[in-house]
């Protein structure tokens, strides 16, 4: 059975090997140069506040071809699970139904359970290996940029740098989550193909569901996997974030960056008074034309107003990675189990 599965999967396997090789060549050709720029920049040997300068200088050098490879690589790692789900998963069983070949396969002397297991295992494990391979190569290549961005927070020039390890879509391209995404994307495609029995609608549904999960996860689930930490920051300090003041003295503050927690993921933030209560109306002394926008934060700080934030510290990076991977792997296992049960037990 493995023979037939391999034979049917051969061209996809060769394609994915070619993609991996091309990716390795692209990264291998530009990576060492990037690493030497990083070594020369002095970021690796700097300390404390002295790092921002060299980090910024290094990030300024990451332009042109580096910026292109950065974006391309990120896109490849992020899109691989969806592409695999759509082009490997969805047609895997749907094509057998479309062409009637399931009748040929199921009337040989092999049980449907074995047929299903082989069909799920070989392409499924390859999907996981290819995606994680892309992620690891990209992680190696982009490590200097990530390190510099951590020391010099803020959007980098000309390319979509996130904010620290939790940035979107950086988080999705690193660590172990690509394993979960690939397993889920593939089994989602297979299940859709089994239910629709036609490849095209199965591909469309796979894309829609995978994209919906990809939006729901960072917005609704990932922030709540672990209870957030809380911190309050003085407005007098080096404030990095957004503020708005509306007529009538209503105002809001939002933090982009916590000084005490570099790289932390800010989930929500807002102005609070000295007692820690949220405030939205500014003290009369700070309103009006007397106080310019630049002095506003100092004036508010003088009245005991600061910014409170709930956040996930960088130390939560791996716990959140593993939890999210676990969720996706559990979904993938459930889908694979459904396919196995449906094909092995219930007949069309």
């Amino acid at each position, binding site marked *: 059975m493995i023979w037939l599965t391999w034979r049917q999967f051969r061209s996809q396997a060769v394609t994915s090997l070619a993609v991996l090789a091309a990716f390795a060549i692209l990264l291998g050709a530009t990576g060492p140069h990037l690493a030497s720029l990083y070594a020369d920049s002095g970021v690796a040997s700097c300390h404390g506040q002295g790092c921002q300068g060299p980090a910024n200088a290094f990030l300024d050098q990451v332009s042109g071809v580096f910026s292109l490879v950065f974006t391309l690589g990120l896109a490849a790692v992020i899109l691989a699970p969806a592409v695999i789900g759509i082009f490997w998963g969805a047609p895997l069983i749907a094509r057998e139904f479309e062409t009637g070949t399931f009748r040929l396969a199921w009337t*040989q002397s092999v049980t449907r359970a074995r047929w299903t297991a082989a069909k799920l295992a070989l392409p499924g494990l390859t999907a996981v290996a290819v995606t994680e391979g892309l992620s690891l190569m990209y992680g190696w290549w982009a490590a200097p940029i990530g390190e510099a961005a951590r020391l010099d927070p803020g959007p980098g020039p000309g390319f979509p740098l996130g904010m620290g390890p939790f940035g979107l879509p950086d988080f999705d391209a690193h660590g172990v989550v690509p394993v979960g995404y690939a397993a889920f994307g593939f089994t989602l495609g297979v299940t859709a193909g089994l239910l629709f029995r036609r490849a095209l609608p199965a591909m469309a549904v796979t894309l829609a569901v995978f994209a919906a999960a990809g939006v729901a996860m960072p917005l609704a689930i990932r922030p709540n996997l672990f209870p957030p930490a809380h911190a309050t920051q003085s407005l007098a300090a080096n404030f990095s974030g957004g503020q708005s003041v509306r007529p009538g003295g209503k105002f809001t503050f939002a933090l982009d960056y916590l000084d005490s927690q570099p790289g932390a993921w800010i989930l929500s933030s807002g102005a609070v008074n000295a007692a820690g209560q949220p405030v939205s109306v500014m003290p009369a002394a700070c309103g009006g034309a007397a106080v310019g926008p630049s002095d506003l934060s100092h004036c508010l700080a003088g009245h005991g107003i600061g910014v409170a934030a709930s956040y996930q510290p960088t130390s939560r990076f791996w716990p959140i990675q593993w939890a999210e991977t676990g969720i996706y792997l559990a979904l993938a296992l459930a889908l694979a189990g459904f396919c196995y049960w449906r094909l092995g037990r219930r*007949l069309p």
Partner: protein
Amino acid sequence: MTAVIETDGLGKRYRRQWALADCTLSVPAGRVVGLVGPNGAGKSTLLNLTAGLLRQTAGTIRVLDGPPPSRPEQLARIGFLAQDAPVYAGLTVAEHLTLGARLNLGWDAGFARDRVDWLGLDPAKRAGRLSGGQRAQLALTLAIAKRPELLILDEPVASLDPLARREFLESLTEAITERELSVVLSSHLMADLERVCDYLIVLVGSRVQVAGPVGELLAGYRLRQDPSAPPASLEDMVLAAMRHAAGNDDNQQEARR
């Protein structure tokens, strides 16, 4: 006489539609059995149930004295050629033979090789580029080379042109004569069945209208025939049976009104 297929009140429903309802029949062993009937009589459903590709909604079915095949040793005893002879378009002829060898217990590699050779099929050619007749021959080779006790052919020649149809049936007869094999083949073309079958089951609306050895059926029918008319063919007899069934149906509907 033992039976290779026995059904009792067998039924298969898709959502609200019954594709086969209350079908009770017995297919004798050691025969080449033709299963005839109009489109929609449930022939294909019956054969797919027999091969274990479908599960019945009602009634019972026994195949080779057991349930429809699901375990490897059961599957090995039944050769199945599905309607439109599905093969993997991307695999070559030789790869189909490898498939048969890898996925079966008692694979007859010599027979498969010789038959593909005799048919003149290029082993390196992809199955997707074969003609309809060649595809059917390749699928038949796979079904016979697994050395089944029961060979089931679902409308094997329906999509073939007359010449390919004749060649297929002749080669089928040749391939099965030297084997201890029970064969069931469905068709709605009488002329095909006349050439290869020695036993006939006429199925109309899931009901067996006529069943028996071809020679006996024909002799019996001719006896009841008007002596002045030319001797009836098998086709005349089957058509008469189908008309009779349709008449019964109409009468029942009349009666209900």
